[in-house]
């Protein structure tokens, strides 16, 4: 352990640091790593038994919302696991929507008619947008279910239809492991599916193929050279400002375990930056292999 720690410190010292330019996006790992699914491609391995991070309480969330307001957060994102597994999720959203716009990343399974109706009421009570993002992994059960689980394709679509009928205009994201999705044809096919199910004005986000590439790299072994060095150039040349294309230059992630640099590194203890948001306003060393992926592929988790 000691040797490993020494190595890490060397590595950290050799890594470029990204400054927090402004805190635009505040993430909440509101359901922790607990999920009612266990998708094969889940990059933080969520499942019904994964308690690496646990549900956040309304009180915990409030503390960070208050800090977020003082620090000028522009928008709030809620993810998990599955956010609607959190029994206080609707109160949490109500509190967030008093502070700014909120986006929920959901797998759609818990979006029954009643819940969608309540979410619509929450959204109407606020001047800010409540955006729902629902993920699918294919155009049919054959492509989706092996990844997300048996029978999930139909259940996800049912949730999406409920959301649409309640007037929530959900954003559907497709992350299928097929290149086809990024093409005009793939898009048409997906739109046709949604329209056939009664989603008249589908909002569609097709996650670009590089994220899948990123996924593959994340699960595979990284080579030594796949790390950022302080001599590497950012987008506009060397120096702190040049890392502004990385989401960690304008976001933080809160879990029940504290504040982390970004949504990607919550399974790395070194990604933890502090207890309160104000503990985490300093720069962060880009010393994790995932940072290389972010830099090269331009990964961003928000809509």
């Amino acid at each position, binding site marked *: 352990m000691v040797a490993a720690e020494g190595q890490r410190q060397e590595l950290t010292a050799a890594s470029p640091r990204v400054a927090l330019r*402004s*805190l*635009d996006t505040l993430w909440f790992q509101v359901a922790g*790593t607990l999920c009612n699914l*266990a998708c094969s491609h889940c990059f933080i*391995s969520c*499942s*019904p*038994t*994964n*308690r*690496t991070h646990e549900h956040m309480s309304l009180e915990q969330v409030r503390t960070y919302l208050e800090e977020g307001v*003082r*620090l*000028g*957060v*522009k*928008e709030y994102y809620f993810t998990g696991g599955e956010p609607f597994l959190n029994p206080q999720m609707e109160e949490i959203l109500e509190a967030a929507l008093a*502070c*700014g*716009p909120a986006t929920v990343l959901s797998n759609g399974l818990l979006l029954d008619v009643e819940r969608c109706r309540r979410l619509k009421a929450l*959204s109407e009570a606020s*001047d*800010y*947008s*409540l*955006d*729902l993002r629902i993920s699918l992994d294919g155009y049919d059960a054959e492509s989706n279910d092996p990844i997300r*689980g*048996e029978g999930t394709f139909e259940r996800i679509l049912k949730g999406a239809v409920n959301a649409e009928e309640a007037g*929530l*205009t959900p954003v559907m994201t497709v992350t299928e492991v097929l290149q086809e999705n*990024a*093409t*005009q044809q793939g*898009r048409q096919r997906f739109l046709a599916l949604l329209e056939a199910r009664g989603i008249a004005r589908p*909002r*569609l*986000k*097709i996650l670009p193929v590089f994220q899948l590439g990123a996924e593959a790299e994340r*699960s595979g072994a990284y080579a030594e050279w796949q790390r950022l060095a302080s001599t590497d150039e950012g987008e506009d040349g060397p120096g702190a400002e040049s890392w502004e294309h990385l989401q960690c230059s304008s976001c933080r992630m809160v879990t029940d*375990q*504290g*504040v982390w640099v970004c949504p990607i590194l919550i*399974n*790395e*203890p*070194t*990604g*933890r*930056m*502090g*207890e*309160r948001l*104000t*503990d*985490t*306003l*300093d720069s962060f060393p880009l010393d994790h292999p995932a940072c290389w992926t972010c830099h090269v592929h331009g990964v961003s988790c928000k*809509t």
Partner: protein
Amino acid sequence: MSQRIPEDEVDKEQRARRDVAVDKLTAHRGMATWGERLVPLGEFRQAAQGYGRQLDAAARQQQEANFLEPQADGVRVEGPFSKIAVFGGVYNNSYALEALLEDARRRGAEAVYCLGDFGGFGPHPEKVWPLLRQGEVRCIQGNYEASLSSGREDCNCGYADPRDNHFAKISYDYTATRCSPEYKRWMGTHPLRRRVRVGDHELLLVHGSPRQINEFLFASAASTPYLEVLLNEERCDGMLCTHSGLHWHRRLPSGRHAVNVGVIGRPANDGATHVWYSLLTDGGAAGLSVELAPLVYDHQSLAQDMRDEDLPQEFVETILTGWWTTCLEILPAKERARSKF
């Protein structure tokens, strides 16, 4: 597709898949994922608590103050005026620009400001240039001007959706090939931000946001605390922007103003064919008055020119109906719910 798999093979495959699934569902009992490894939960938690800081109250206050400290941009303040007109997003719409200059003059604007994006979407880019010059319009660069004057290959509009990018490219290529090198150079001569005084209110003029030239500021997606912090940082009494295409005005709890002046290049996705700009007037003791002004122009002639130039039918439809047919993916839920397509 119709390749037959023997029955017992199917069974075996299904069973294997189910085993993997059950494994995944229960693997984390008492364990945590640390990078690629499974470790006992306590080990992860302890390691995590060892990282990060826990500052005391005084240090937190100091951190927060440093983080929010105002930045001086050294930009000279123009004015003071008692009334100005501000618009953005011309998108090659010379008909609307003509109507705007006329309307602003009639309504007593002492200065006229353009927040950028002269080109894109509409026909005959070069027609806009003499109007801007003769009208003595004080301009800043939008992402279009920044891209065209630097020879960039795309408009840097900031769309994420492939269809939106497809149409954005048509617009940009059309505009780029029809602007003279002189016009493009002229675009690059404008500053990226301006400051102007109306009465004793100092206003900051930017294209997307003070932080980013192509940031979309929609009413339902820009929190009030965010806007207050921006205005503190920039030390101004009001911030005027465009870029997103939808106009809005918010009087902040501090009494200051955030305004998206809208665009005059295409209608505001509300089923009406007119476009929008803003008038800012010093009201003396009553403070600053912000008016979002509708602007009617000859949209039929614009549509005809667009058809003659073979611009996409989708664009023409927007001009004639007032409903957007593209750029819909960037809209937040509330703005999207109000749109037709």
